[in-house]
């Protein structure tokens, strides 16, 4: 392989057709409340962990819906399972169980 002093950049788009929906399908079964999120961001604003570290629980759900599971692996570890987000969610999403279920699904994959 020749070196030309540059590399072919990777696409940063979400290729939905290729993405892995297995974690999402697990969640649909075990924590279906994830379906009703309206991305209002209340959870992120109030999240205990998100005040201090780069963690966005709303975004975790969005990435899950898109089948972007690589970033999820790191993200789920940041939650402190305090439950503040559940208290505030207007759609009744159960974030604590969501986090646990994502972890279970990821463990199953490996």
């Amino acid at each position, binding site marked *: 392989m020749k070196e030309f002093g540059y590399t072919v950049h990777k696409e*940063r*788009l*979400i*290729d*939905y*057709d290729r993405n892995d929906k297995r974690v999402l399908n697990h969640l*649909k079964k075990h924590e*279906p409340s994830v*379906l*009703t999120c*309206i*991305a209002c961001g209340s959870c992120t604003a109030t999240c205990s962990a998100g005040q201090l570290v780069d963690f966005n629980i*709303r*975004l975790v759900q*969005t*990435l899950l*819906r*898109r089948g*972007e599971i690589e970033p999820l692996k790191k993200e789920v570890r940041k939650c402190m399972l305090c439950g503040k987000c559940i208290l505030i969610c207007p*759609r009744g999403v159960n974030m604590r169980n969501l986090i646990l279920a994502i972890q279970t699904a990821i463990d199953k994959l490996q």
Partner: protein
Amino acid sequence: MTRTTVIIGGGVAGMTAASRLADLGEQVILLEREEQVGGHLRNWDRLFPNRRPGYEVLNYLTEELGSKVDIRCLQTVTTIFSGERDFQLQLASGKSLRCDALLLATGFDLFDARRKEEYGYAIYDNVITSAELEELFRSGAPITTRQGKVPKRVGFVHCVGSRDEKAGNLYCSKVCCVTGVKQAIEIKELFPEAEVFGFYMDLRMFDRHFEEMYYEAQQKWDINFLRGRVSECAENQDQSIVLKIEDTLTSRPLKMTVDLLVLLVGFVPSPETLRLAAMLDLPVGEDRFLEPADEHTKSTLTVKPGVFLAGAVKGPFSISNAIADAGTAALQIHAYLKTL
């Protein structure tokens, strides 16, 4: 002397206003361009938010009209002369009519989706409009791709021809969001295995039961709403559609293939409305819909005494809102006629 009101346009608003005026003892002539009254409602299968059949409402309005109103179909008004206190209408049939009050209820047209070239409507096989989908529902014909396949993934594009300076329409068409949610549910009813997506900028669930319907779409039907405006579509080798959109909630471009793409076309003022408005010197807004005398307090009156407006000549309207508006217009006309 009997006082006569001519209503131009026999859609939901025109039919309702005609019935109300007749109930109030007024003599009414209802002019309709098509063979039958009913307007766009004739083409709609089921209505939001409860998905009742459209014909139920249409039958109700028709029965209500009964024989108390003089309905004249296949009539086009060619010219209108405004007299001191009355109007002379010349019809294409050669006849002429005199009336004391005139109600414009000529409604709207659907946006011509071909104008959004980037979506490839009328170019790509599997891009259709919400009106066409409704027609398919109504006909009961099997819903497939043009290649005869059962769709596995269906997308709904919101705001086609609305909220878009490129289309020349800055306004929101108001009812396409809820129509999109309704049709998405109906697709899921037919194809529980299909993945269904709504591509929206804002979901405008403005009326009673609409938000609950959106909740049901997510919770019960697993319909996926993805925030972003579809920016372009292309056709794959198998005639499925690949679309590009920003997933604004992750701030990344997203690409996805759908088997069928439904464009939620908005309202545009009908050329007929604008032609009549020009004859009557009625003010037209920047959005090209007609301006009432006062947006809040005289919303069915115009600046011209004796000329009234009802329904979608003034902008996007739902059926229930058009019915309510037409009732108000009838009361205003009745009050006006009493002053003559």
